[in-house]
């Protein structure tokens, strides 16, 4: 499968603003997807505010603007799949159905948190929904997901692994080692690169000779597609197809989802003053809003209107506020957990 080395119009912030093109059939999941995206945005916005307010201290990397990727990919996943993320993984966690309260408790360092307060925003786990872990060492979960795919293949039940990572992670050698391993052993791992054009303050043009990373998959003989990462329909249909195939016949697949983050690298600010072209671009990129574009398409199709959207927003806001309130009340881990959680208990 050949794929061009450049993003083309997907890198142009002035394009792809129109409402999504909806599928002809199987549209029933779309209102749910809209709600999930609103939930991610609202939850992350709340987290951002709480960082500003000084109530959250751990570093939080927000995925606002990138909601469609995780929501689109998660549509075809099942709880026995094995999903891994990185430092910017609230969206992966929530898209899979992770508990809001456990997320809020985790960023607050509470014992009821997803990782029992031991990990914070950058270390989320939710075994019930298949999320096996997210960690902030760039690229580090790529081989781990690859090994989870090896386990899935050995299990022989058609489960797959998903590795979410950013464009920056493609500069780590382990990304290539993992792709070669997956290609050689034919492991069912879905590599999902959220190419948001930035690694921290640096635009991809300052870090790589070309702006699309799918070319690496091609080199490793891994089939790849590139999609508009702000189009949940496009993401879901690419993921659908890939995953169905992987379940039947184990082997790796690569999705490059082109997107953009609205907030700064870390925390709620928008880093307008940082890096190339960010200030001018950001305004335009906001017009490629994954939530708005889906909503408008649904409205045009008669499946949503401003009242239904407002209702979703209101309900989600309440959910987030309630989860937060609960989490705030929750206890911190007991002092002995400092030492008691290092090793397993002897039998």
């Amino acid at each position, binding site marked *: 499968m050949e794929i061009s080395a450049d993003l083309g119009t997907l890198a142009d912030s002035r394009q792809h603003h129109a409402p999504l093109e909806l599928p002809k059939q199987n549209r029933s999941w779309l209102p749910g997807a809209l709600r999930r995206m609103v939930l991610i945005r609202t939850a992350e916005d709340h987290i951002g505010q709480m960082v500003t307010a000084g109530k959250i201290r751990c570093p939080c990397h927000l995925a606002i603007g990138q909601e469609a990727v995780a929501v689109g990919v998660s549509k075809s996943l099942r709880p026995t799949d*094995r999903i*891994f993320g990185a430092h910017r993984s609230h969206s992966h966690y929530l898209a899979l159905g992770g508990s809001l309260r456990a997320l809020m408790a985790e960023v607050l360092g509470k014992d009821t*948190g*997803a*990782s*029992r*307060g*031991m*990990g914070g925003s950058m*270390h989320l*786990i939710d075994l019930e929904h298949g999320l*096996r*872990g997210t*960690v902030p*060492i760039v690229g*580090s979960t*790529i*081989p*781990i*997901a*690859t*090994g*989870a*795919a*090896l*386990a*899935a293949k*050995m*299990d022989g039940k058609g489960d797959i*692994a998903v590795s979410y990572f950013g464009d920056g992670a493609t500069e780590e*050698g*382990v990304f290539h*080692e*993992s792709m*070669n*391993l997956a290609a*050689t*052993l034919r492991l069912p791992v879905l590599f999902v690169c959220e190419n948001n054009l930035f690694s921290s303050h640096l635009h991809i043009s300052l870090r790589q000779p070309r702006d699309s990373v799918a070319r690496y998959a091609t080199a490793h003989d891994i089939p790849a597609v590139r999609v508009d990462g702000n189009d949940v329909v496009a993401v879901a249909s690419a993921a659908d197809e890939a995953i169905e195939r992987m379940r039947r016949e184990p082997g790796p697949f690569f999705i490059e989802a082109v997107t953009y983050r609205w907030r700064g690298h870390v925390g709620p600010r928008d880093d307008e003053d940082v890096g190339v072209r960010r200030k001018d671009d950001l305004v335009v990129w906001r017009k490629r809003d994954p939530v708005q574009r889906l909503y408008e398409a649904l409205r045009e199709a008669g499946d949503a209107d401003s009242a239904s959207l407002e209702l979703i927003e209101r309900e989600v806001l309440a959910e987030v506020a309630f989860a937060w309130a609960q989490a705030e009340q929750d206890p911190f881990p007991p002092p002995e*957990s400092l030492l*008691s*959680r*290092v*090793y*397993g208990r*002897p*039998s």
Partner: protein
Amino acid sequence: MALTSYGVAIREGFEHLLSYHPKVFTIGQGLWSPWYVGNTMTDLEQQFGKARVIDTPVSELATTGAALGAALCGYRPIVIHPRVDFMLLAVDQLVTQAAKWRYMFGGDVAVPLTVRAIINRGGEQGAQHSQALHSWFAHIPGLRVVMPASARDARDLLIASVLCDDPVLYVDDRWLYGIEEEIGPPVELDLAWEGPKLTRSGGDLTLVGAGHSAWLCSEAARALAEDGVSCDVIDVRVLNPFDATLILDSVKRTGRLLAVDGDWATCGFAAEILARVAEEVPPSLLRAPSRRLTLPDAPAPTSGPLERSYYTTVGDVIAAARQIAGVRGDSWE
């Protein structure tokens, strides 16, 4: 009863694990080669199939990470690094991922990953094919570190490592592959209860070492006994978490400590042994300053004569022990 060598004992450990534990598999470089890892895994791929005995590309970091991923999904993989030196490319997965995974995710996630690294040196291989560095890994909370010094331990501690729900670094040493003993049938130990062992008792001096250094200590103690110097010998076996109780009790009795280690001195495992004793044994009980015998402060040279002077020998241990015990030549000072 038949004698089994350390190298063959390791293979017996693999055979036991692969036979009785369906979730065990092994992955790494050289597994389909007749020579890469000595005689410790010969023909395993034929016996158990290439799906469970996986030879890999030259990708230490991804291979180690992949094994971690499989461990998180219920398997008990054993990663093979034919040299410690190569494993240094995988430090991130071993130290920053595997060792911390359980903790970062709340304490309840099992991480049954075993990484086997081989100390392979001598033979004029030079600085990049000679490192030991077990001290580095013993430094890391969350990572259990095992170094067998006997054939039985080579087998049974391998089995214990793989059956443990924490990540374990198992370090064996090619210089030991030829030693032999009767080892009986395999035993499934709980690694959490394993620790240093007193392998010989004596009142004049405490000798402590791990892996090949434990062997040096035993050999030296045997020779010293003939000279009238009687030693406690402690084989450390498990370097992390490190339980020094046995060593402390011994030094309280003998008042003299010689720690032998095949790693460098500064911040090395021998330093840890001395530090524990310094903290826990009242100075009044010490009859001599403690001492360590380690590699010189240099990378490994290749040139034969330099290499011979680089590594600690039984003779070096004997000489140092005599000195601490106050023996000069054949007579007491």
